[in-house]
């Protein structure tokens, strides 16, 4: 079922995917167990002439065990999922590695504006290189993305990187990723942002290191 996932090309996407598989197996087992039990009960205990149902109220402790034991298992599995999730979350959201490249991405109705800092190394100054809808990055480098919005909430979504981050007007939000495979990948907007929401799409272009240098030389000759 999870084989529908787009190809993962980020360093942390694999962690998210394994967590997903982990939950998938746990819930899958529960699904078949509970459905199995329900179907067996429905067939085994369907109404038969002259057979009375058992009078079981489930209020003694031994009977309540039938509720409490599976409940404890559910609780343990829940905490297990949370525990694993917190490690992955911390890796992605809290302990970001230091960056090799800084890029500004600004959402607006209905485009992504991409900005690379110029020689001063700062975003939002006159020497920035600006483009629309194309985010070029080198492979195997940590990219920090500074996200802003000019109007409404947009959501920066890179399915192949398992990265999604809402872009809030009035706030600057940072995200990071490290792409592991060159190619061209979709960069849609995942939050309803107006009548042009459908079709607000950019591209992530991951270059090999050589190609990236060439791209920089061509588009950005003054880079130090």
């Amino acid at each position, binding site marked *: *079922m*999870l084989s*529908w*996932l*787009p190809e993962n090309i980020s360093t942390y996407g694999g962690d*998210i995917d394994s967590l*997903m598989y982990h*939950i*998938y197996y*746990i*819930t899958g087992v529960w*699904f078949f167990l*509970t*459905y199995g039990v*329900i179907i067996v*009960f*429905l067939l085994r*205990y*369907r109404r038969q002439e002259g057979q*009375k*149902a*058992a*009078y*079981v109220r*489930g209020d003694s402790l031994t009977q309540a065990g039938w*509720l409490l034991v599976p*409940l404890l298992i559910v*609780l343990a599995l*829940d*905490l297990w*999922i949370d525990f694993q*999730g*917190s490690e992955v*979350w911390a890796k*992605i959201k809290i302990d970001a590695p230091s960056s090799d490249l800084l890029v500004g991405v600004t959402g607006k*109705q209905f485009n992504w504006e991409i900005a690379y800092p110029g020689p001063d190394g700062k975003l939002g100054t006159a020497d920035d290189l600006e483009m629309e809808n194309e985010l070029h990055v080198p492979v195997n480098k940590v990219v920090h993305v500074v996200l802003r919005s000019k*109007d*409404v*909430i947009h*959501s920066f*979504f890179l*399915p192949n990187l*398992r990265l*999604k981050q*809402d*872009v*809030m*007007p*009035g*706030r600057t939000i940072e995200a990071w990723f490290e792409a592991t495979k060159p190619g061209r*990948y*979709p960069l*849609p907007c*995942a939050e*309803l942002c*107006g*009548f042009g*929401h*459908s*079709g607000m799409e950019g591209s992530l272009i991951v270059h090999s290191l050589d190609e990236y240098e060439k791209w920089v030389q061509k588009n950005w000759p003054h880079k130090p």
Partner: protein
Amino acid sequence: MSNILGDVTQGTYHEEKGFWRTYVFSTDHKVIAKQYLALSLFWAVLGGFAAYLIRWQLAYPETAAPGASWIPEPFMYEGVVPPEFYNVLITMHGTIMVFFVAMPLLLAVFGNYLIPLMIGARDMAFPRLNMLSVWVFTLASLVLLISLFVPGGAASAGWTGYPPLSAKAIYTGVNWGMNLWIVAIALEFAAFLMGGINFLTTTLNMRAPGMTLFRLPLIVWMQITAGVVFMLSVGPLIAGAVMLLLDRVIGTTFYVPEGGGQPLLWQHLFWFFGHPEVYVILLPALGIILEILPVFSRKPIFGYRPIIYSTIVAGILSFIVWAHHQYVSGIDPRLAMPFSITTILISVPFALIVFALIATLWKGSISFPTPMLFALGTLGVFLIGGLTGIFVGSAPVDIYFHDTYFVVAHFHYTLFSAVFFGGFAGLYFWFPKMFGRMMNETLGKIHFVLTFILFNTTFFPMFFLGIGGMMRRIANPMQYEFLQPLQPINVFITGSAILLLISQGIFAINFFWSLFRGRIAGPNPWQANTLEWSTSSPPPHENFHKIPTVYRGPYEYSLPETAEDWLPQNQPELEEVKK
């Protein structure tokens, strides 16, 4: 002696009323429930039609939807949905289904109809407030309808209405449509506050002699817990809605960053209400199946008290889960873990209720009339909804699934299971009580089989769409190269959805046919124990000819000491035998 009290109460406000007083401006909780039923079914048809247009657009973008060419410009152009109207459709579909179908159907219909009957009262504690609630709800319905036709078009910022998109008209081109949308929802909340107050007061104060809190049918517990959760969570949203309206109408900047406002504030206020709201809808639906399963298994519900405690725990936990809607919104990332834990923990009380339902089937004597089929269907569908909730509850996995069709599939599995399967279960089960006649079993079973199969073929493939990365609320998946391979799934879903909608016609036919031609039901066609079955069908104006006395809990089926396999709550024999 015992009926002196009954006669006194009977005399107070029971007098012959004219047509208007009896059927339109009625204070009778049963009539009010039926009024809510009519309104919610009306809205379900409209919400379903919006779903049809949405699905057509997703399968065959920018082509004319069959049967929709009568809709005039500027809504649609000869049956084609323009992107502005697509956003109106998704906004209205969500608003209608959550606030104008789910809440009235599950809370107002079943709560109003059942609570006084089940606790042995003559009416709600505040009958006039109850009448006011249905009329305020009618007003809310009118305002929402009008909002569709004002210049600039109807609200189109999604049913969650996230600002700044919803806060300034320039972003959507919608002005009065959005204002009226806010007013409609505020009025609807006022209506349900009146209802919730009535539910709680009635249950606590007007129970028949012997009806202790631990002899209440579980649906009553579920309804009043839902009422309390609603009352405690709705305040912040009303405040939030007033602020949004001020932003729009007089130009304050609570949510607009240019003036120092904060869009995230709305999300906190909205979801502080919005997530408990899910349980407000879910609990009454679980209550319905908790009533139905024991009757058709001929067994006491397994773990009556643990279920009550679980319900209360779920109610309390529901207040500390809201921020899981904001994992990717830019809240402090350290907040995600606590909310992930509370969100996944809320599966525990619901798991207990599910286990209790399953244990109720164990060693039962199970029959399968239509209400039981729908009750089991609710359980089966809700299980998938609950299990897939773990994915989106886990913060790192939600990074990927947030705002994709995985979420759409997940909440349709939880809410559709509650509203439609649970609602149908309840309607088939209490129809004989409400209207005095039985519904047709054959039509009912066909309706169930088609609904169950087509529901799954409609919503299960949406998980695949979500896994494939398809975003919510896009009008045209074909605009994205990476989604084009998923398009056959969209076409398949649309086909299923259309059949699912059509098959609901079977229910409509059954409903109206049975209303006039159905077999006469008699007071207790299912041989059930709870008090509503101890009076005639339909019950008289003040419910009981004589207020019943309650001797035991609601689920005493198949007692070893008795020859019959059921023992109504108001039947004294067993106590006397024991003496």
